[in-house]
């Protein structure tokens, strides 16, 4: 299965809005919760109450500091000066269009679905060689030593088509949970889909495009910070004291 199917028309994926993500880990835990009993479960935790607890997570939320930047460029390409920022960054499988994690797999356990592009592991075939995890630059593959197999984000394939769930709830657990609604799910292969339009409107980006994996998932960069919008201000004279009596003749009506 390791050979990639012809590119699918439907490219299901996530869009994550870094401008809105507050780093609350809800997506990470709800993912863990659904998937623990889902198609890729269990997401085994070793040493759960001990010294070095370590479990399988399909989604992990990082926090970074961005240094301040001076503005640069001009015209359409201009970048405004930006203050230092704290950025939260959830990381999960990007369901790449050129996923080397699939092509390196010796067993065919890793595969990309022809129908919607979801990248999955067939745990019944996986020998736990870990090569796919080496081949993924995004750290999206999670090996469970206890289970002896590779695991990864399933894009909640057992939710998004699940006839037992209300139509509105057929979306990934992380998307449904996200309290700021910074996560969006949909068909990125369809330029008319809501999330494709969102990506277009907000200038969504690929992570490390130079590697050629062509991630389906898109990240929306934080909007420029606005501390005053650089407006020029005519300062009135702040030095002369103002007396409360200035309101003596103010006509007010109750």
């Amino acid at each position, binding site marked *: 299965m390791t050979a990639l199917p012809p590119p699918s028309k439907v490219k299901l994926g996530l869009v994550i809005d870094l401008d809105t993500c507050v780093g609350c880990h809800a997506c990470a835990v709800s993912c863990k919760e659904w998937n623990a009993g889902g198609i890729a479960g269990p997401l085994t935790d070793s040493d759960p109450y001990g010294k070095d607890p370590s479990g399988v997570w399909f989604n992990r939320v990082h926090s970074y500091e961005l240094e301040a930047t001076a503005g640069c460029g001009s015209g359409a390409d201009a970048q405004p000066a930006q203050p230092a920022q*704290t950025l939260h960054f959830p990381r999960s499988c990007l369901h790449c269009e050129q996923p080397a994690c699939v092509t390196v797999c010796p067993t065919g356990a890793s595969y990309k679905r022809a129908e919607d592009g979801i990248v999955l592991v067939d745990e019944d075939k996986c020998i736990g060689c870990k090569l796919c995890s080496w081949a993924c630059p995004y750290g999206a593959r999670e090996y469970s030593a206890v289970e002896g197999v590779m695991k990864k984000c399933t894009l909640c394939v057992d939710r998004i088509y699940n006839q037992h769930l209300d139509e509105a709830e057929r979306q990934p657990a992380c998307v449904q949970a996200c309290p700021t609604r910074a996560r969006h799910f949909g068909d990125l292969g369809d330029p008319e889909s809501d999330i494709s339009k969102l990506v277009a409107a907000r200038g969504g980006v690929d992570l490390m495009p130079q590697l050629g994996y062509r991630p389906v998932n898109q990240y929306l960069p934080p909007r420029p910070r606005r501390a005053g919008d650089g407006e020029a201000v005519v300062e009135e004279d702040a030095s002369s004291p103002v007396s409360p009596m200035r309101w003596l003749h103010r006509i007010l009506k109750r």
Partner: protein
Amino acid sequence: MREPKLNTSPSPGDEVKTTTCYMCACRCGIKVWLSDGRIRYIQGNPAHPVNQGVLCAKGSAGIMQHYSPARLDKPLLRVGERGSGEFREIEWDEALQLATSWLAPIRERNPDELAFFTGRDQSQALTGWWAQQFGTINYAAHGGFCSVNMAAGGLYTLGGSFWEFGEPDWEHTRYLMLWGVAEDHDSNPIKLGLGKLKARGAKIVAVNPVRTGYGAIADEWIGIRPGTDGLFAFALIHELLRSDRIDLDYLVRYANAHWLVVRNPGGADDGLFARDADGNPLCFDRNAGAAVDANTIDVAPAVVGEATLADGRRAVPVFQLLAERYLDPRYSPDAVSERCGIPADTIRRIARELAQAAFDSNLVLPIAWTDSWGREHKEMIGRPVAMHAMRGISAHSNGFHTCRALHVLQLLLGAIDAPGSFRYQPPYPKPIPLPNRPGKARKPDGSLDAGPLGYVHGPEDLLVDADGKPRRIDHAFSWAYPLAAHGMMHTVLRNAWAGDPTKIDTLLMFMANMSWNSAMNTRETLHWLTDRDANGDYRIPRIIYSDAYASEMVAYADLVLPDTTYLERFDAISLLDRPISDADGVADAIRHPVLEAAAQAPGRDVRGFQSVLLELGARLGLPGMVHADGSPAYRDYADYIVRHERAPGLGLLAGWRGADGGQHGKGAPNPAQLDAYIANNGYWRQEIPEHARYYKMANRGYLEWARGFGFVASTAPIVLQLYSEPLQKFRLAAQGHGAVQPPPQHRQRVATYFDPLPIWHEPFEHDQTSRDAYPLNAVTQRPMFMYHAWGSQNAWLRQIATRNFLYLHPDTGARHGVADEDWIEVASHHGRITVQAKFAANVQPDTVWSWNAIGKRKRAWRLAQDAPESQQGFLLNHLISDVTPKGDYANADPVTGQAAWFDLRVSIRKASDAQAGPSAPQLPGLAFAEADERPLRYGARFRNAQHRSQAKPESPRRKKRP
């Protein structure tokens, strides 16, 4: 090769039940999917008004909380020394008999010898009533150490407050200022709201010494120095006044800006409102040229200028006093900039932006409404500036006044309950001050004449004896902390140990980890809990505690009453306590058992504490809890929720009342009420009519609607109090006026801090310690993924933060010779801890901080002996004294008694190599058994049932007991 066949439609469970989450106090609606009697999945309930389908990290980890190995299963009787954690399991009957045998003599002798304090529960509608029926004045919940500054500051100013009693107008605001908020109780609603603001491009400003979470997504971060927000607010007020960008019309219509204040220095009436013979406040009507009832309409009130009253006294309008004070150059941006750590230009710009957003946005909602005076308005004028503030403001000893300062700032902008501004959530606004005063005396049946907590209106309402000494064990409502509306749980243990004012016999506690993270001065607290008198008896003779898990506090109880988990019991989230209303509707909710406790583990025999309390009450024969023949009046809590009436027609739940369930708000008990709630996703909500949703304090439509529910007694407008007369009454008492006056040692303090207009003073610890010896501020923040102490037993949540670090700015590290990840010694005037430092530049350089309550006592929560929570984790609480550095008062706000957690000042230095881990102090481990160390394969059985697989069967969990 073909793709494997997948089952993309597995059953998510054979049953789904809706209830209310309790992984924190936010009370979101959840859907619990069950499969074969086990929890398959918990999701947010899209049909629920609080969370609208979203779910936070804690809520998502509910499975691991319910199946926590630290869960208690049986009543426990202490066998070892207090604090060792050694217990013997007993049956409920023995436990209840024992408790009754301890409590009955107390009630006979002196009910005040029972101190009943509860923590993070949401059952105050029951527990407060129970305490009242028992007859003890010594009752409170956790609000005193939590955020009573927010509550009192708001209730005495607006008749509503931040905290969870109000919210920004998420739909319309264009400018949101978050003051000292990391997470707060409205966890998911705030996040939903921030998402909306972001989508709309509204500006968000975070005022916070640390830039994380909400601060990270804010458009602007103002890294203020802790404890100086009041000054910053005053500078903003100064700027708004100076540039005359204020809403004077709003101020005279809805606030007391025009009320006349008597100017009679030294007189008993100085600073009180000038009133007419009927007690109505007066204003000066420029049309009439005379003082008239300030509440009348169609007058032209003066807001400055001295008036002479009919009796010859002189008086000035509130606004003049306000303007005089804040126009003073000492509150100019340039004057406060250095202390606050905010450039003066930034302050001026923020003031300008606030005014622009409020006044130049021209937000008008085309909704006709009628004001309290019967005038009809075609539209609602918006002031789309909203503020929200929480413990960054309230957990300081100047927090009450700072909170008032923020409300004054909002009022000047006309931004209280206007479209786009801060909005009340019903049952707020309420009259100012709230009418219910704390109970003081006992009735013939032994019960208290009113609930033990309430709102004092003046010195006569204090709970002090003839000498002016405190009556309550926590000293709430005494001269030291007169407006302690939520009690002062943080002073109970010291005072109980010291017998100050008198000895208590039994301490009954519920859901509060008072021997660890909710204690200030944790180490000495453990001493007070275990200290013995000359006879060898414990100085706190008896401790009964209800917890659901093997927490640090459990180890210090003599008798442990095991509670259920939140999925196994009934709870009422009542309008009489802390409901789930939002600004557009009133709502309450329940929890109901979605799992049967006894079926969860062999031998598990736990009971909901509320039911236990009612049974105890019945055994004690407390009024209201027994029938005339002495038999229990209520079967259990569920029965009480349905049948109990606080006043005729008024019960714990407002929905589906009346015999047929057709009445809402008030109505006779409905035997099928709980079923109606269960069928409606666990909640009841009634929308406020559209014309009644803003200007609630003076909106006739709203006030009539609210009166229908009993939220307000009359439809009189609620006048917002820029100037607070109750405070002035205390000040006058301190100046020697009136029948009830403070003893000499408190006079200066009361006179200073009971200023009727907001003041700013240095946090006590800042002034009472050397700024050279302790140059840094130290604060904590809530992690969004953890709820206080109780998240660490959760196998999933603890993986996110198994330990904490002390974060500091790299420049601060350099200044103090500390490198990234060094172990450092952190000292305060009170204590010393050794912890690991970590650099991060997202903090104001004079401030260090850590995540709250990650550090755990060794072996508590059944974590392994070497769990990082105890080995590397730490509590800042060891550094936080429960008294001021001078030792004269509790480390608390002088008005409300709010615990001043964030006044903490520290020094840091690199620790010696020998000290480089584990963190210090390391207290002896508790005698709780460690949890099973085998890998946790939760969910394997669900997966196997639904998907073809060769996965191993789920291993049975080994369970150890204490």
